[in-house]
């Protein structure tokens, strides 16, 4: 079977891990169908004995029926269990992949989209991929294999019926393609209206304050009502055709049963003489087996929406499951950085030569949007680039982030520091007395701390970095949101605390020139090392 674009995408994205195979699930489904067909055979034979011969069923045949039905039932249970395990296993693997990508690219990735977007990965996208693979992909095979088996049995029993079915069956997919094309055409024609009107309700819910402020709630409610009426009319136009697809299946399967019943009945009566000799046994078996020809295809149709959902998910997940390519183990100690022909693709940035020796202070300048933040993220290893810093580096962002827990948890983040050390660092950033005067001290919850200003929060964040004892500090405009006096104070604090560390500092605001040993200027996607004092 030709690989669908979705399958190709998944294979490319997950080249580093192996998803569990689908063969066992397919095998069980096929086995189930085989046993059911056999059970139908035994049942037809029993019915033949009862009604035509007038004898109670042969005990051997009864046993056969019992074994086949029980086998079918057991396989059904196994199939459910397998599907369950398959689902859980795949969910686990995909979640791991996503989690690893998050850990690899960290803030560089997360900050690009709103939190809600990432939550949707858990809520919607990963389950969509897994459901598609567990149900739709398995059924795709079953819907081809089972009808072939059923057709073989029917051929064996009665080649005339088999030939008739073989002639008419290809019409089914043909009709489905025609119907599908028709529905797709209608959908395209109505596409703009459908996309515009489809999400109007949630759009207006999000705009409630605007509607209230402009006194437009009642007018817009009427508008929504009209729009949903218009949307419903257009949707019905599209689905009227789309529903035909499943009706085509229904039409053929129902009509096939009806016509075969009439043909067999009339042949038994001797009213019709076409094809081989028909017995009640062979007739009933064929009749019972016929629905299997299309029922699996119908089931595939029921899973069809999973494909569309998985396609939507694949767009949202592109690049989020991929292998962890950037992972190169680096030494703990920073011994300088030297990169010739530094290149980064997203966004494009190049440099002929970049050099840092331990203890250097580098200022990064450039207009907004030049890629300063991206450069820091690449140096920290959160973004793919030709070079990254070796050794432990810490990053300070514009808006310091805090967990909802206690001050202590916020400072420690999983490490265990003695209180004396915590207070020492807080003292260093000028928050020592303010925090020791709080009734609960370090155990005060962040929410209960009296309002901290932007500058104070940034000091707390600096205290947290000081505890980490890293050799390299990457500063991404830590004072951008602060007024002038706080900016000056925080900068002096950083200078004081990090004098003997390596610092790479992005800032729009003015900084003391003599603090820095080099300036990296970014312009037109090039980084130039413009000035070197040492």
């Amino acid at each position: 079977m030709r690989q669908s674009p979705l399958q190709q995408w998944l294979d490319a994205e997950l080249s580093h891990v192996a998803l569990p195979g689908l063969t066992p699930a397919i095998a069980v489904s096929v086995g189930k169908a085989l046993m059911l067909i056999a059970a139908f055979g035994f049942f037809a034979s029993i019915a033949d004995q009862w009604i035509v011969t007038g004898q109670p069923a042969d005990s051997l045949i009864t046993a056969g029926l019992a074994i086949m039905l029980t086998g079918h039932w057991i396989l059904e249970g196994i199939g459910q269990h397998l599907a369950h395990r398959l689902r859980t296993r795949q969910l686990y693997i995909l979640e791991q992949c996503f989690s690893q990508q998050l850990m690899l690219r960290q803030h560089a990735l997360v900050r690009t989209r709103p939190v809600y977007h990432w939550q949707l990965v858990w809520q919607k996208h990963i389950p969509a991929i897994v459901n598609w693979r567990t149900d739709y992909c398995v059924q795709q095979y079953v819907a081809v294999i089972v009808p072939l088996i059923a057709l073989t049995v029917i051929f064996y029993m009665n080649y005339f019926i088999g030939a008739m079915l073989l002639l008419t069956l290809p019409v089914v997919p043909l009709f489905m393609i025609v119907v599908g094309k028709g529905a797709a055409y209608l959908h395209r024609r109505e596409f703009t209206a459908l996309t515009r009107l489809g999400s109007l309700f949630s759009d207006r819910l999000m705009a409630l304050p605007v509607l209230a402020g402009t006194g437009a709630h009642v007018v817009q409610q009427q508008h929504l009502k009209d729009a949903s009426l218009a949307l419903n009319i257009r949707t019905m136009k599209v689905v009227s055709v789309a529903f035909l697809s499943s009706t085509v299946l229904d039409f053929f399967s129902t009509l096939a049963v009806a016509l075969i019943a009439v043909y067999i009945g009339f042949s038994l009566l001797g009213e019709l003489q076409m094809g081989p000799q028909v017995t009640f046994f062979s007739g009933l078996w064929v009749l019972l087996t016929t629905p299997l020809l299309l029922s699996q295809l119908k089931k595939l149709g029921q899973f069809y929406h999973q494909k569309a959902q998985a396609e939507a998910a694949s767009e949202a997940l592109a690049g989020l499951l991929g292998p962890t390519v950037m992972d190169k183990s680096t030494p703990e100690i920073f011994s300088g950085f030297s990169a010739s022909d530094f290149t980064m693709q997203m966004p494009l940035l190049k440099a002929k030569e970049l050099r840092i020796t331990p203890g250097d202070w580098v200022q990064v300048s450039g207009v907004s949007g030049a890629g300063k933040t991206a450069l820091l993220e690449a140096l920290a290893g959160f973004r793919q680039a030709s070079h990254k810093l070796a050794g432990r580096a810490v990053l300070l962002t514009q808006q310091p982030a805090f967990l909802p827990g206690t001050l202590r948890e916020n400072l420690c983040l999983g490490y265990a520091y003695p209180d004396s050390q915590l207070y020492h660092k807080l003292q260093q950033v000028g928050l020592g007395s303010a925090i020791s005067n709080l009734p609960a001290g370090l155990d005060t919850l962040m929410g209960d701390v009296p309002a901290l200003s932007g500058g104070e929060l940034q000091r707390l964040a600096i205290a947290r970095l000081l505890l980490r004892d890293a050799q390299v500090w990457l500063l991404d405009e830590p004072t951008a949101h602060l007024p002038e006096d706080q900016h000056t104070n925080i900068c002096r604090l950083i200078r004081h605390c990090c004098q003997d560390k390596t610092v790479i500092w992005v800032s729009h605001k003015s900084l003391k020139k003599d603090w820095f040993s080099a300036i990296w200027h970014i312009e037109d996607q090039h980084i130039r090392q413009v000035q070197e004092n040492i």
Partner: protein
Amino acid sequence: MKSTPWVSLCLAVLHGIAGLSILVVSAWFIAACAVAPIGFNYMLPAVAIRALALIRIASGYGHMWVGHKDLLARTAVLRDGLFGRLLHHRIARRAQLAEALSAHTETVASVWVACIAQVATAVIVLPALLAAGLYLVLPGTIFIVVLGMVWLAITIGVVVKSLDVAAEQVLAEQALAERSEAYLRTSSLWHLYAPGQHNRPTAMPVWSLENRLQSLSEKAVWTIQALAFLMVIIMVAWPAAGVLHNPLAMIVPMILLAAPDWLGRSAATATFAARFNKARQALSDLSLRHVPVITAPVGKIRLQRFAARGRPMEPVDTVLPQCGIVTVSGPSGTGKSSLLQALAGEIPFFGKKYSDTLSLPQGLVEPWLYVQQAPTVLQATLRDNLDPARRCSNDKLLEVLASVGLGYLTELSQWLGAGGRTLSGGESKRLAIARALLTNKKVLLVDEPFEGLDVFSRSKLVSLFNTLSHTHLIVIATHIRASSLRVDCTVVMNSGLTVTDQQASI
């Protein structure tokens, strides 16, 4: 609420009955033909079989069509009702909730198509089969009674259990939402964690509950299948008297063999009760904040120990003129935006807010308007975006558009947002100001209008504010100083914890 969709239900039942009948009648027909009693009228059943086939096909399409139409109409009615409830109200966490509410209304509306139609089919078919069995004296009629009883027990069991699972699901989903939110908001700290000490959120508990729900419905089908097959084996191994030479003896085993298809599915859909209940609960438990509209007289605005409730900020005491420009400055995190929202009445406040001499209660103040930092652009035409209440003439709209520097947007029927033109950050800010001007507001509370604008657009906006300041009071929260802005007074926001800067700096 719309009444019961009888047509769609009837079509669903007809579809189910025709499907089962065609199999049973066909099997009986060929049996009867094999035995062929004297005077057997074979034409009638042959016609009946073909008629059943046509009924099955037509009712199948009809049910899908009518059911879907009904579903869409129901969703529209539910949404209209919900939107009506929201007049003078706000919902928290709008982005998340807006999507969820869309989905919930659809779930509630789809209960007929997805669940009730299936169960109704079973409820009608089972007694009908029993009646037919008794009337035709079918061998094994007792098994239909057993099957019906067991089906009822299983369906009730599935409903009860799935409601339990749904309750757990709500908790697990909430926990995941909270955990993941806290986790993602602090992504800039991940690299500072002690190795192995950072707990990542996982959706496995949520997913495993979803799996449990699914396996509940699978187990229901499986149990019905076990029972039906067992009864077939019993019937065959210990045949009742009167099965021999009797074509009618075929019917009950055929019904039993097909039971997983026609009966199993209805037991499986009973888990829909969980989804339905969850959605209905979410719709009725919707936490709304009432924001009434109050009218304020024109005059000076006086604030006494005024602060936004529930936000960290220092109380403000100040007097704002009737017209002019007032800027609110201060470091981020001191509540500039909260102050503006509390002034407009978007969020509740502490202290006193006087307009002229009248002390204003909580609520949205009529001739005042808060303009968001990232203004909402409605998914609508430009005309609706400017004037959502549809009160102004086209000429007026174009005039105001030109005055805010959006004169190049002349096509009022142009669609903005998804499926249309997207506005840049600066354009949407100016659009929001145009929208405010068209509502005849006297006081505009503008949140960070200059952030993200280039120098040219910024200066256009400044001159617009300067012009407006003769007739309006414009309160601007900003940390960017625009030099040509004619500021009448400035409110400086400060904050709590005192920092001893001397101690920290050298």
